[in-house]
């Protein structure tokens, strides 16, 4: 059974979101990394890029396929996880910590309410 930490928010497309004031940290869930298997490359967004809800922000490439990672919220990319360039497998080994992908400065913090809770995400996985 994959891990779904209770303190995080989730999307239907298997991103997790950690909200810290007006900053959102985004990565992919344990379930998603298991499904993708060995991650071999992460295409990171550019710092300063603007995101829309559900716009493609990054691409995670596993041995098998390329998968789009969506920005869950409207805002601006303020930081990306440069260590994924050297070691993309952090997405597999530490999806919720060292394998985070990018940070967004959120335009409207209240929009985060529309994200799924851990319980809702667990139900979504079925």
């Amino acid at each position: 059974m994959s891990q779904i930490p209770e303190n995080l928010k989730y999307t239907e497309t298997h991103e997790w979101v950690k909200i810290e004031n007006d900053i959102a940290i985004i990565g992919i869930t344990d379930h998603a990394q298991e499904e993708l298997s060995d991650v071999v490359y992460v295409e990171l967004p550019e710092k300063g890029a603007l995101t829309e809800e559900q716009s493609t922000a990054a691409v995670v490439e596993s041995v098998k396929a390329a998968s789009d990672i969506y920005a869950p919220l409207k805002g601006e990319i303020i930081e990306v996880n440069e260590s994924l360039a050297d070691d993309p497998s952090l997405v597999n080994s530490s999806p919720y910590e060292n394998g985070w992908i990018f940070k967004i400065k959120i335009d409207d913090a209240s929009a985060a309410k529309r994200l799924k809770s851990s319980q809702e995400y667990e139900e979504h996985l079925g």
Partner: protein
Amino acid sequence: MPSLDSLKKTPLAEVHEEMGARMVEFSGWLMPVQYEGIIKEHHAVRQNAGLFDISHMGNFIVSGNQAAEFLDTMLTNHVGKLEINSGHYTLMLNERGGVIDDLLLYRISEATFYLVVNAAKKDEDLSWLKKHAKDFKVTLNDVSEETAGLALQGPRSEEIFRRLFPHKEMPFRNKIEFWKWSGSEMAVARTGYTGEDGFEFFMPGEKAATFWNLVLEKCQDLGCKPCGLGARDTLRLEACLPLNGSDLAPGISPIEAGLKMFVKLNKEQSFVGRAVLEEQLSQGPSRRLMAFAVKQTGAPPRSHYLVYAPKGKEPIGEVTSGGVSPMLEKGIGLALIYAQYAKVNTDIEIEIRGKRILAKLENKPLYKRS
């Protein structure tokens, strides 16, 4: 995608699920894509050994006094020259010289042949063969349903074989042997799809789970792992073995695919598609299937990505198979390239989501066992 419940299952499907394999759809079959992870399984096969379920593949028996003659009209390699208990790689073409399927053909007696074909093409292969068999005294028998296949691949395959069959003679490369195992007929061929030494075992479906477990029990201490289709694909790509449906297709000829050595234009019987191949050989094919390796870090190449000459504006080809090589630790693949650019050591660019990465055309295979 169809629901996983509606898919065909090999006799080993339950064993895979019990062992924790991730199951996916492949050509209408429920198949394991991986157990522990594609890269780990890949290295197990390169260093030690790996065991694969290949029961989804199609198995035909073609027999009759005219079986060899008939197959020589349907397949590119020289069937008549095949010795009893030997096999070879061969291709079945359409009228335009394009590939319907690539397969292994074994001669099991003077007038009996065993064919192992791709799962996705099985029905098409069978109807193509039947359509052309009318004028020949041959019987076509599809034994796919009742046949299970297991592939043991890797440098320690011989050692494992000796543990499994201490009193049997080991077949040489491309040979096939038949014997009884646990009261049933078993075929053992020294063939594979990984670029490593190995064996392929064919047996009745009801024996598959027992044999699978026995092999794993006998080889666990040798670093052998059960493997899924994911590793099968990365292994065959490093070895530059083409995958039908990606590198081979009805619009691609074996000459273009670099498989000339499996095409015998001078055999007595003409075969379907021969005229087109002859023309391609005399004029030179317009495209060639080339191996490449990426020269910089970046996203891995994937099939259908476009290929350019350095700084070129128009595409010169297309990637047909791509991925990351676990052995070379870089992006590799096969690409169909216009002939004038298709020279080894030529630099190319591959477009990945609007950006270009530098790669170089390389000799095949990209990885060769030492």
